[in-house]
């Protein structure tokens, strides 16, 4: 008698397919009906996007008698959709910013690099991004009105998350605390921001904040939008972190206090490491939500990726290729967010696995 545990036999692929598609007459019928529906939906799209499409050429080639998509438009407007109104001769700067962000995200995605050192590194990177975009120390200055495209979408998201985090942490702790007034203020902040649509928060940032500042003072439009995004997401992030705090059994805190830890030490060494690790996948999912929701900046006239795509179709030479522009933007968003959500799933499995040991 062998003591070795045998893995359950895995059926070969073709068998799983046959089982999944034609296990009985009803299942077979469902397969055929689904196939018919997919073809009915996809064929016109494939005709438009592939068969009748114009892949290269000028606007004149697209203006002809074709009923298909004009991908030549995406080729011609590629730079604009990525960087919007950033001066073309300086476009190496937003390109470098994208590279910087990609490096930063890759680094912080790997659990092996997780440490408190990531915080100063991210802050440094944000300063670097700002210097590259705005043009500090000898670079030609570029006003934030000319910033745009994918760098805006990503920078606003990352800065939003970075600045929302400390705020959300304090809000979550305040909501859990035994101090009544502090708790009430935190609850009011969180529930008000979660109860209104994001667009209302952005309107406040755009229309009310300039009026509420003392006369003479002014805050840049993009910065105001950034503050709005940050405050809005800090409320959601606070609830995510609170869920993590609730996972910690009270015995842990009592044990830490009885060992003579101060309350700050207890939070930093016992509570937060466990609570935050438990909600990292949820934080990643929320970050995807931030990236998707920065598209609302388009409504208040900031040229993020979506607005850049929309504006590119108002070029008098290439007029009205909205569908192509939106599909390009959709693919870009999808690439970013799908990677993020797969990563979150992978992370969840990994954290669960390490939890068992």
């Amino acid at each position, binding site marked *: 008698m062998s003591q070795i545990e045998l893995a359950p036999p895995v059926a070969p692929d073709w068998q799983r397919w046959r089982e999944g598609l034609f296990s009985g007459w009803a299942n077979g019928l469902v397969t055929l009906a689904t196939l018919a529906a997919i073809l009915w939906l996809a064929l016109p799209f494939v005709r438009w996007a592939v068969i009748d499409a114009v892949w290269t050429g000028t606007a004149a080639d697209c203006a002809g008698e074709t009923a298909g998509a004009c991908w030549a438009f995406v080729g011609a407007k590629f730079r604009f959709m990525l960087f919007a109104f950033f001066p073309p001769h300086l476009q190496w700067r937003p390109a470098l910013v994208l590279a910087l962000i990609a490096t930063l995200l890759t680094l912080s995605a790997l659990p092996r690099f997780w440490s408190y050192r990531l915080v100063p590194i991210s802050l440094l990177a944000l300063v670097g991004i700002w210097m590259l975009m705005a043009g500090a120390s000898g670079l030609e200055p570029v006003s934030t009105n000319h910033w745009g495209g994918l760098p805006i979408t990503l920078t606003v998201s990352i800065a939003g998350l970075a600045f929302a985090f400390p705020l959300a942490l304090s809000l979550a702790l305040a909501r859990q605390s035994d101090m009544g007034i502090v708790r009430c203020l935190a609850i009011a902040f969180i529930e008000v921001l979660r109860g209104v649509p994001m*667009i209302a928060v952005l*309107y406040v940032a755009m229309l009310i904040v300039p009026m509420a500042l003392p006369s003479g003072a002014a805050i840049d439009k993009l910065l105001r939008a950034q503050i709005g995004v940050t405050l809005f997401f800090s409320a959601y992030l606070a609830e995510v972190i609170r869920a993590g705090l609730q996972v910690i059994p009270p015995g842990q805190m009592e044990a830490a206090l009885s060992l003579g830890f101060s309350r700050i030490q207890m939070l930093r060494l016992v509570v937060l490491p466990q609570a935050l690790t438990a909600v990292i996948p949820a934080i990643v999912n929320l970050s995807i939500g931030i990236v998707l929701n920065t598209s609302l900046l388009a409504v208040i006239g900031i040229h993020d990726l979506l607005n850049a795509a929309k504006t590119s179709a108002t070029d008098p030479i290439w007029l009205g290729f909205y569908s192509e522009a939106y599909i390009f933007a959709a693919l870009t968003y999808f690439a970013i*967010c799908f990677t993020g959500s797969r990563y979150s799933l992978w992370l969840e499995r990994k954290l669960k696995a390490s939890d068992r040991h």
Partner: protein
Amino acid sequence: MVLPMTRQLQPGPSGPGPVSRLRTWIGPQPLQQFALFFGVLLLFVFLGQNTAESMHRMGLTPGFAFLSHQANFEIGESVLSYSAGDSYARALGAGIANTVKVAVVGCLLATVLGVALGIARLSGNLLLASFVHGYVELLRNTPLLLQLFLWSAIIHALPPPRGAYTFLGSVYLSNRGVFLPSLSVDGLPASVWLPAVLLTVFAALVISRRLLAGATFYLPKTAGTVLGALAIFYFALVSLGFSASVEVPAKGGFNIRGGLSLTPEFAALLIGLVVNASASISEIVRSGIQSVKSGQWEAARALGLKPAQIMRLVVLPQALRVITPLMISSFLDLTKNSSLAVAIGYPDLVSVANTTANTTGQALEAIIIIGTVYLTISLAVSAVMNLYNRRVVLRGEGKR
């Protein structure tokens, strides 16, 4: 026997008084807490004073007096009758009605589509399940605003009414909007008979629930009761001298006439919101049903229950406990997301309030109105949900 005696003999209040209760509520460091509270209060007073000053500089008077002034803009469509020249209050009311309309219809359709997709995802069929999976991933990883822009672009790129796409000779898709067959009762406006029908359905549901004593998920009997009630309602209408008829839209000249017509903006918003929410709802339904442990299925099968009975009597009652709160929060999301209407030209509350702010300059008041309406909806729904949760959780704990 001794304890109550000693308690009665003790002087003073038996429980903590209001002062000590307040002190427990405030907790440690009351002075610092009051300082924080007054700091926040001062900040708001400071910002408010600045705002009032700025408004005076712009020649505006803070306050809601402008609501009774004449609004000189048109609203594309509205459930509430409104025309340029009516008051701002009425314009905003029309906006609220439009928001409610798209939210209610959207939630209903998203539930139907989402539940169907969730079940499709769970069906053993590999092709159908992967197709739905792809649909969900595509919708969840692209911004809703982009989806709305795309739907709007697609609807505006449809052929004019003359060459409109037709399905079954009764549904028309054109760049002037979507046309559907409609039900009408001759001699009665829809605002009278539609609520009556809804009331009938609701009454039938309540009665069937009472009669079947808690067996909520017995679909055939419930459906039978509802259909029966509707039949009685129909015969009552006919015997009172009204006649109901189905009106099918038809091409006539340069436009399509008759039936129910949806404007391109409403159609784009509704389709966008429904398709987007259906992706989340299908995931909620799937995870809710999968949250029921496989042991429950096996035990039910061992007891000799049929698959339909297992679903109705064992799985759904447990899954619904997980599904309901998530479903309601996705209804709230849909309602809040309907504010994106402003970007594609459907006159919802945010869009009308935005126009109001632009024409009167009273941006602060307009935003306060938006915030109040959405907050009222959100807080009311979450209050009801907390009540429901407490009931369901308590009931569940009690049975275990």
